[in-house]
């Protein structure tokens, strides 16, 4: 590409733009103020003829970067895709004419809006370059699966069938995990009437026979490091006598963590006499009894008597806010209890042809939840087989199997004398160490000790609980995948369920959220697809979700860096380390290109080829700021391109009008917003700034997990800056916006316009 910047500005007159706006004037602005080499307009720019006009200019060398002033950057992406050429999109349709009334009175401000956007586009393009892959690594088509339960086995077979090498690491001496301990599982196919085989044996056989799959039993990961496309993993095996073999090192392209779950410790449920009564058992123990009976009569543990009346207690220590209980629903237990009641019913039926009510089975539930396509059918099948369902809260189970509960339909206390009581105790994720919590606790301890205060016993207790790491990552950010709530590995719940905060490492199965075997298999398949995508993208130097395919990546200007390490601290994905001198070290393949580091950098040395402090900062400065007496305030909106910007586009499609004084700039994530942009905007005479990002917190919707949260924290400190400028705090607002907030986003803009009306124009207009 030639060194000289030659920008072509192309203005579309289609979609009524030509009627609503003075495009000649826009051309003139692009030429005179935007200093573009070529400025042309066209009646139908996205049509073949229009695109050809642009392509001809590129081919003839008249333009080596283009500004397209037409519709939103989210529309017509196929038509306006000029590879190797930096492209800036000026949003005149959704951003201007669709949000402004079509009358003479509004014409002036609408035209001004369009002119400003053209100025901004011409300013941005000067600071954009075409990103290129760094060729940092090759393609390693090898998937590592951690955990040999049904999730891990499914992931392994899916990856192998897709043509990838697989290493499957399992801690115990057999494949199968929890599912392997089951007698049968809830049905996964129509008519969803009877329990079906788990399929674990067949799956294990398939894996053993597959030459693409290597299975490591009795093994754990003693170390893992690297990045997508080039993970180095150490696998340590332990022998029966307790000794360990020398660790084997393998390299792989991506990792699937399917470490599963562990059963909740029923000993904690003293009210249900679990530890004292042999005939009060957990669901997993019931599976063992059914396995032992293998279709025959099920005998209870205490005296081997064939059971006559079995009571299933749902939500035992789950969905409860009591100390030590699980706050969540484990998702599978209702179906599991129905399935186990069927074991009893089906056996009884075989024994006494025709009559199915010889063994009484009662399921005591508060809310019956049977997820999945066949859940309701399975429930109905249970009823049909004579399983009794009673809505009630169990208060106690005594040593003799008397179950006391309050019936919520009949509104009274009742007691059932049962031979066997099965507790649905739920699952705890086996998700490794919670590094964040550990850091928090040790910081708390260090601080208290420094202050010569006594460290509370519960803090010491929590520190003392040993937790085994699953991955033993050698990342600076910790040994395991970050956790969100209740110990489950973090993943973007709505949009990218398998994507964790460690790029190239995917979580699947109950380590991610509570689920049953069928969901775990679906999960495994999804995670495998992501793991494959990660390998292929990493090989090409492209980003993983959500900016999949993006080639740009951050670099920093070393001479300006103060080694403050804030970029490393704030990166949500652990992509930044630092070298011996304390300079940041970017790990391109781990980077998700959100720009949170760019927003964090206090000395503003971090930038992407096509997205930088300047590419946005110069847009802010390019706007024409009318003087105070014109009574035309200027509002800056920095909108997250993932949710807020689409919401604005959709508001425009619905023709929801908003103030003509606003100038919207899309940003990759609110986390990439550097406070310098706000300061610059206020200094150069903007009257108000509105930031729109995604929801933050435990139920976050931020596509980069922490970006929105970071932005909120940074902006909470902007008040100081405002104070030094002698400005009102109301001039800066930060909002959490969802993609569905199409009525709300125009309101937020208009609210700021109203606020400016009340507090007056900024004194910084020159």
């Amino acid at each position, binding site marked *: 590409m030639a060194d000289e910047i030659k920008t072509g500005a192309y203005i579309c007159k289609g979609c009524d733009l030509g009627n609503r706006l003075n495009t000649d004037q826009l051309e003139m602005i692009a030429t005179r103020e935007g200093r573009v080499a070529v400025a042309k307009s066209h009646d139908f720019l996205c049509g073949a003829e229009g695109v050809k006009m642009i392509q001809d200019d590129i081919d003839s060398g008249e333009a080596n970067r283009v500004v397209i002033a037409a519709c939103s950057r989210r529309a017509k992406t196929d038509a306006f895709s000029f590879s190797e050429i930096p492209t800036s999109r000026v949003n005149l349709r959704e951003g201007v004419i669709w949000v402004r009334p079509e009358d003479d009175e509004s014409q002036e401000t609408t035209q001004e809006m369009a002119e400003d956007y053209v100025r901004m586009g011409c300013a941005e393009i000067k600071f954009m370059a075409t990103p290129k892959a760094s060729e940092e690594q090759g393609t390693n088509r090898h998937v590592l699966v951690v955990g040999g339960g049904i999730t891990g086995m499914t992931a392994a077979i899916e990856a192998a069938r897709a043509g990838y090498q697989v290493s499957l690491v399992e801690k115990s001496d057999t494949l199968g995990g929890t599912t392997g301990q089951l007698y049968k599982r809830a049905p996964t196919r129509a008519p969803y009437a009877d329990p079906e085989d788990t399929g674990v044996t067949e799956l294990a056989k398939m894996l053993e026979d597959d030459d693409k799959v290597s299975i490591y039993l009795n093994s754990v990961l003693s170390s893992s490091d690297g990045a997508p496309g080039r993970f180095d993993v150490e696998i340590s095996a332990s022998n029966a006598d307790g000794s360990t073999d020398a660790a084997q090192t393998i390299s792989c392209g991506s990792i699937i963590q399917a470490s599963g779950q562990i059963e909740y410790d029923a000993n904690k449920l003293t009210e249900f006499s679990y530890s004292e009564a042999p005939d009060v058992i957990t669901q997993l123990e019931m599976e063992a009894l059914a396995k032992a009976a293998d279709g025959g009569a099920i005998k209870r543990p205490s005296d081997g008597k064939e059971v006559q009346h079995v009571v299933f207690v749902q939500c035992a220590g789950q969905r409860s806010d009591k100390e030590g209980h699980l706050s969540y629903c484990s998702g599978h237990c209702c179906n599991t209890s129905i399935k186990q009641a069927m074991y009893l019913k089906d056996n009884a039926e075989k024994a006494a042809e025709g009559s199915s009510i010889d063994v*009484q089975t009662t399921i005591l539930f508060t809310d019956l939840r049977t997820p999945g396509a066949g859940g309701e059918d399975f429930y109905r099948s249970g009823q049909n087989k004579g399983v009794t369902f009673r809505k009630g809260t169990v208060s106690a189970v005594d040593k003799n199997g008397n179950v006391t509960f309050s019936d919520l339909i009949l509104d009274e206390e009742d007691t059932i004398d049962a031979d066997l009581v099965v507790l649905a105790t739920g699952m705890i994720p086996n998700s490794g160490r919670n590094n964040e919590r550990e850091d928090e606790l040790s910081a708390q301890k260090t601080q208290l000790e420094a202050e010569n205060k006594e460290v509370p016993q519960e803090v010491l207790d929590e520190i003392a609980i040993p937790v085994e790491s699953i991955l033993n990552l050698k990342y600076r950010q910790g040994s395991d995948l970050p956790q969100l709530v209740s110990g489950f590995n973090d993943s973007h719940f709505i949009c990218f369920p398998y994507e964790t905060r460690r790029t190239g490492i995917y979580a699947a199965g109950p380590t991610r959220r509570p689920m049953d075997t069928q969901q775990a298999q679906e999960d495994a398949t999804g995670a495998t697809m992501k793991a494959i995508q990660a390998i292929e993208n990493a090989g090409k130097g492209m980003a993983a979700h959500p900016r999949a395919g993006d080639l740009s990546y951050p670099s920093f200007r070393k001479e300006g860096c103060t080694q403050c390490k804030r970029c490393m601290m704030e990166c949500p994905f652990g992509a930044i380390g630092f070298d011996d001198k304390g300079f940041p070290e970017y790990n391109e393949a781990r980077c998700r290109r959100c720009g949170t580091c760019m927003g964090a950098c206090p000395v503003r040395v971090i930038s992407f080829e096509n997205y930088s402090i300047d590419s946005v900062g110069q847009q802010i400065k390019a706007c024409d700021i009318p003087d105070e007496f014109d009574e035309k305030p200027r509002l800056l909106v920095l909108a997250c391109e993932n949710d807020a910007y689409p919401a604005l586009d959709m508001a425009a499609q619905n023709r929801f009008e908003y103030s003509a004084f606003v100038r919207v700039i899309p940003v990759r994530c609110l986390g990439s917003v550097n406070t310098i942009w706000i300061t610059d905007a206020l200094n150069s005479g903007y009257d108000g700034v509105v930031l729109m990002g995604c929801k933050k917190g435990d139920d976050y919707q931020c596509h980069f997990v922490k970006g929105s949260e970071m932005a909120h924290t940074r902006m909470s400190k902007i008040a100081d800056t405002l104070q030094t400028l002698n400005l009102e705090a109301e001039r800066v607002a930060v909002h959490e916006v969802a993609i569905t907030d199409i009525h709300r986003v125009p309101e937020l803009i208009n609210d700021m316009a109203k606020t400016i009306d009340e507090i007056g124009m900024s004194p910084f207009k020159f």
Partner: protein
Amino acid sequence: MSDLNQALADKYKGNFLKEVIDNVEEGDRVQMCMQCGVCAGSCPMGPHWEHTPQKIFMMIRANKREAVLASDSMWMCTSCYNCIARCPRELPITHIMHGLATYAKRLNLVPKTQPTAKFAQLFWNNLSSKGRVNELKLGISLYFMNGFGEGVKTAMANQKLGLNMLKTKRMAINEAWGGHSVKDKSGFHAMLKKAAEIENDTIEANSK
């Protein structure tokens, strides 16, 4: 307590649901109730009876034999069929209610003062004697259901209505003498007898 009642109670000890499945018309559908409560919300008589169908079904599963069979609830059903039309599980709730009422009657557990139970008996007696409902006699027997004095009072109060019905030929006075009947009356009686026999035998067998 009748002997039959005692025998059945002993036989199905602790499993009233099975007793209902075996002996009550459409009783096998009770176990399919999912306790959503739509029937209870749909019943026009809802506020006037002791237990809604939803509760009756739950009580059956909770082994509340006496409470269910001695309840006046199923007698309050007006057969509007709202519950059947709305039940998401398509249970024949009205039929089950009548089935329970019949079963309670057989076991002699009907509340003594329950007026619909009395009416049901009058209706059955009227219908089964000739195979046709004799409306005049049914009306009169209903008036005198609670004794002679009250019957005269009710008749006097409805005097004008009765005369108007006669005038417009809505009431046939000659029905008072004999009344019309099915063609094959003896055949009809034989049929009823056989049906009762089958029913009695089944329940008798279940009680042993």
